[in-house]
């Protein structure tokens, strides 16, 4: 399992708060790794800083996924970063209101974010500013809705052979 390395966590928090004091909303040590919530305008600069800093060296973007918070009417993005040299992982979170779902893209920092952001756009509708080719990747190209938002139904709506009275839906 991941070991929590307190010195590296504190170093990361200290460096981030010294360089980006107003953008860090919140940081918390969760069960498995440090989790930092930042404002969306500075996420591009923060990711670049984390990658290039000589002591932190987060050279690997493990994954990027979207979230929907219906109670706050917000869409979010969660980044997991990994530093091979120090064997340290952190989680970065950012969110944006549903009415204006734009977030700076990480493709210029890590090319691996290309398809991950397309998938997040496909599922949630988050527009990544600066992405070279933001089109749908997994769903049908002419789909209008964003399926992984909580209000979208899971089941195929064109079936007429299901008898709901038998299943207590």
């Amino acid at each position, binding site marked *: *399992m991941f070991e929590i390395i307190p010195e590296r966590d504190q170093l990361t928090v200290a460096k981030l708060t010294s360089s980006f004091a107003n953008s860090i909303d919140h940081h918390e040590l969760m069960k498995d790794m440090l989790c930092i919530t930042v404002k969306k305008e500075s996420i591009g600069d923060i990711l670049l800083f984390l990658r290039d800093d000589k002591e932190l060296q987060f050279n690997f973007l493990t994954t990027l996924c979207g*979230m929907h918070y219906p109670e706050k009417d917000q869409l979010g993005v969660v980044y997991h970063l990994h530093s091979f040299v120090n064997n340290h992982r952190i*989680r970065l979170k950012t969110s944006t209101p549903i009415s204006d779902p734009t977030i700076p893209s990480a493709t210029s920092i890590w090319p*691996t974010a290309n398809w991950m952001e397309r998938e997040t756009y496909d599922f949630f509708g988050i527009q990544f500013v600066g992405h070279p080719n933001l089109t749908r990747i997994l769903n049908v190209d002419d789909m209008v809705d964003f399926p992984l938002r909580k209000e979208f139904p899971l089941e195929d709506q064109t079936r007429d052979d299901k008898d709901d009275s038998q299943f207590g839906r």
Partner: protein
Amino acid sequence: MAKEVNSDYWDKDRVKAEEPKEYNTLNVGPTHPATHGVFQNIMLMDGEYIVSTEQTIGYIHRAFEKIAERRPFYQITPLTDRLNYCSAPLNNMGWHMTVEKLLGIETPKRVDYLRIVIMELARIADHIICNSVIGVDSGALTGFTYMFQDREFIYEIYEEICGSRLTTNMGRIGGFERNFSPKAWEKIKYFLEFFPAKLKEFETLLIRNRIFMDRTINVGAFPLDRALAYGFTGPNLRACGLDYDVRVMNPYCSYEEFEFTVPVGQNGDTYDRFMVRQAEMKQSLSIIQQAIDKLDALEDKETYYARDPRFVLPPKEKVYNNMEALIWHFKIVMGETDIPVGEVYHCIEGANGELGYYLVSDGGRTASRLHFRRPGFIYYQAYPEMVQGTMLSDAILTMSSMNVIAGELDA
């Protein structure tokens, strides 16, 4: 009388200037025997050389992440089977470990060792497919037919343990559903005896074969820094030269007690990927042998699940006879237990790389959000860069050596 030919007719520059280059569009479409799964590459070809590729995936998109928001944790295991369906037990075990991390369940040592035996068998099964298919795509079909006999034997081992061959749904959160039968152990031990010789036979067919070497050395070579930037993990990254293996960096499931080496290549070309997978199969055999020795050395030969009644389903004999077991079974299945609120990310060394599960729970019976970090999806992005300027036959070999499985691409 011979016709007079202008002396400058064969002047190459003149020929070039008069015939403008035309690119062909070739659709290596979703239904194609060389693409192992349904995904499409629309290639712009200059004769036999590829100028650029455009990829389309999503032809088998089944919305796992959306389904997972509706199912309780133990019902998501069959979904994880179908991610990288060549090594289904690996995905199942990874999912169980993620949920155990969220719920805070400690599995006993015996369960860990049993899991390791299964996970390494699944890794061998996946590498058998990938390597024999590299052989098939370069023309050597015999290796494929011989290796698949051994994969059938692995299927028989799975059948002894969980009843099903391909999509295994093996194990439960906290352990397994039943102890491995003596027949299963017999089969596993027999597999460890006969498989090394078969592997050697397959190797001698290909690895010093002049034709195979010419077709795979320096084909699809990828430099290490680009591979890291593209998020490569697993055998593809190890073939480029970096020894990143999740079992060593972030050990899970008692892997730190096992001794194994991590094979590493040099150039990141197809030959290196083939050789890294071959070497990994041998390491897996050694790990299975060590696990069997450790299991024999443990005094306890009966536990196969963690004793945590709040979240681990009790075995059926107890449920039918014991009142408490019945109550816990009811509570777990009906969703009356208190699932902790929180989020957890767990990753395992899947057959293709770092397979990660990001699970967010809001205390309800189902997950609030589940995201799969699928290695196939992530490194397939690098394919256009890998094949630009190469020939079509080399591009097909590169694709098969990367081991892209459609179920993992689309989820």
